[in-house]
């Protein structure tokens, strides 16, 4: 048995499955909390294996969003009336919940954004343009999502910085030695990497990468879009300077995300967007900016979305997350073994430590055809390049089919996946 799937020690908080004292995770109870699982698709109950794209939402998130629109429907921060007061309090409470979830030192270190993409663009813009100069280097890895590539390429084009890539090997792993060599070569001012790869499932050694970055005087940014749903994240233990994530992948609403930034660093950045709520005082003679977090949150935010995100975090806090993660890891292993056992299926991404996403290709069928056929079996997975084209190039494939897990998945889901993959095989060979 491969050790693939074991979460990173220290950040993952999960032990070996089935160890003494470990509570069983009641996945049936969790499933009942997710209304989308109650639907019939193509005549069958939905098998949802696309959580890496967007996770399903528990009922309490729907209820929280609904309550904002049906009752606490006021803009925040500025009004004295009751709906606005209530919305403001719930909004700021969500910030504190996320602070706790990430282990941030202060609530002002949590900036709400529209998603991981905006969080990373904010750093590229605010930190990049203020602190970097032509010739400075930015290190990314070969497994990044486009959201952690294109903003840096745009920055490079604008100000003349250079992108350095730590390539992945054939298992989809990065080499710490390679990263250290590149840092040693000098000039790298920022290291931006995915904590977990969305295309391959690889868990990167985030703590070690951040330590190396610091050692060589570079700032670190971890793209946590895929890590936050599967690993226990503690930004202080990781030692990262920035951490980006999306609510919609963490069982929360769409259109919300966050950027964590170490206070001193974040506080030194110029604003990202200009507008309401981010100012101290505006005049045509000169404008001054508000303190954190407002300075980086211009305009009316996604109020209902942020409050719904808070509800998702409450939901996660109500679970035994260690047990949930063990459950996910077992399922990951089960799916991994099941896929490998089907002749003509090749798994893409076979890192020692992985979670969440399982990519594969088939001799018989193109990933797009896999997707359509399994969809007709009621199995929702994703096919394509997963916004990680350099990964596809590296593996010399046009695309993969990807099954990805959430806390509501069970063995029956994986069995359905495997059965539908066998249908594909039959159909095309």
């Amino acid at each position, binding site marked *: 048995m491969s050790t693939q799937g074991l979460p990173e020690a220290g950040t993952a908080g999960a032990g070996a499955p089935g160890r003494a004292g470990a509570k069983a995770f009641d996945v049936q109870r969790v499933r009942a909390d997710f209304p989308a699982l109650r639907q019939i698709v193509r005549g069958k109950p939905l098998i949802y294996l696309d959580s890496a794209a967007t996770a399903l939402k528990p009922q309490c998130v729907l209820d929280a969003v609904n309550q904002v629109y049906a009752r606490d429907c006021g803009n925040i921060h500025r009004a004295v009336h009751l709906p606005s007061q209530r919305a403001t309090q719930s909004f700021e409470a969500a910030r504190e919940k996320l602070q706790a979830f990430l282990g941030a030192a202060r609530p002002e270190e949590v900036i709400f954004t529209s998603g991981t993409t905006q969080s990373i663009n904010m750093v590229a813009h605010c930190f990049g343009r203020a602190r970097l100069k032509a010739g400075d280097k930015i290190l990314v890895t070969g497994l990044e999502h486009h959201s952690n590539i294109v903003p840096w390429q745009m920055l490079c084009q604008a100000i003349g910085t250079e992108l350095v890539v730590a390539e992945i090997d054939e298992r989809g792993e990065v080499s710490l030695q390679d990263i250290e060599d590149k840092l040693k070569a000098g000039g790298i001012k920022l290291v931006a990497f995915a904590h977990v790869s969305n295309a391959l499932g690889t868990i990167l050694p985030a703590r070690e990468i951040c330590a190396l970055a610091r050692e060589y005087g570079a700032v670190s940014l971890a793209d946590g879009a895929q890590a936050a749903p599967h690993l226990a994240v503690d930004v202080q233990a990781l030692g990262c300077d920035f951490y980006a994530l999306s609510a919609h992948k963490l069982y929360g609403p769409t259109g919300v995300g966050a950027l964590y930034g170490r206070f001193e660093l974040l506080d030194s950045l110029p604003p990202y967007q200009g507008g309401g709520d981010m100012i101290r005082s505006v005049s045509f003679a000169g404008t001054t900016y508000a303190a954190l977090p407002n300075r980086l949150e211009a305009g009316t935010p996604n109020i209902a979305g942020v409050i719904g995100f808070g509800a998702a975090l409450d939901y996660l806090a109500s679970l035994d997350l260690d047990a949930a993660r063990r459950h996910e890891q077992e399922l990951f292993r089960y799916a991994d073994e099941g896929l490998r056992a089907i002749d003509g299926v090749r798994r893409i991404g076979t890192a020692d430590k992985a979670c969440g996403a399982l990519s594969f290709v088939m001799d018989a069928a193109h990933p797009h*055809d896999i997707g*359509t056929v399994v969809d007709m079996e009621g199995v929702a997975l994703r096919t394509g390049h997963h916004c990680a084209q350099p990964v596809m190039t590296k593996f010399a494939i046009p695309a993969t089919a990807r099954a990805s897990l959430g806390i509501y998945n069970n063995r029956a889901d994986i069995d359905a996946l495997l059965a539908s993959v066998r249908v594909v095989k039959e159909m095309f060979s």
Partner: protein
Amino acid sequence: MMSELRELYQEVILDHSKAPRNFKFPEGANRSAQGDNPLCGDNLTVKIVLDGARVVDIGFQGSGCAISQAAASTMTEMVKGKSTDEINAIFENYHDVVMGKAEINEELLGKLAVFAGVAEFPMRVKCATLAWHTMQQAIRGTDEVATTE
């Protein structure tokens, strides 16, 4: 449900996808275009020998799903020797059929009728039309990359 799938992946389509016809560039090609579907990674290049307003020869290369390979393959068979006006008339009906907007004109489409099942799969329409868009780009002689967006 599975019957819709059989409707989509008809024998003709599976056959063409496994053994695409005209999967090489014709000699003396004087027109060429590249097409890709950025969302799924399909890409292909179509080259044509155009004589006046007639497609004398045509071939393609590239990778993609069964639908897009079969669409490209059947397209090359269909348009070879035809005038651009005839080709336009065929594509118009083909396009509307796969979009679910028109009935099949059997006379016009011939073998292409097997693509009617695509109409039930809106996310696959692009696969069925990429080759055609690329071919038309080649005929127009523009340098742009064709996409299906």
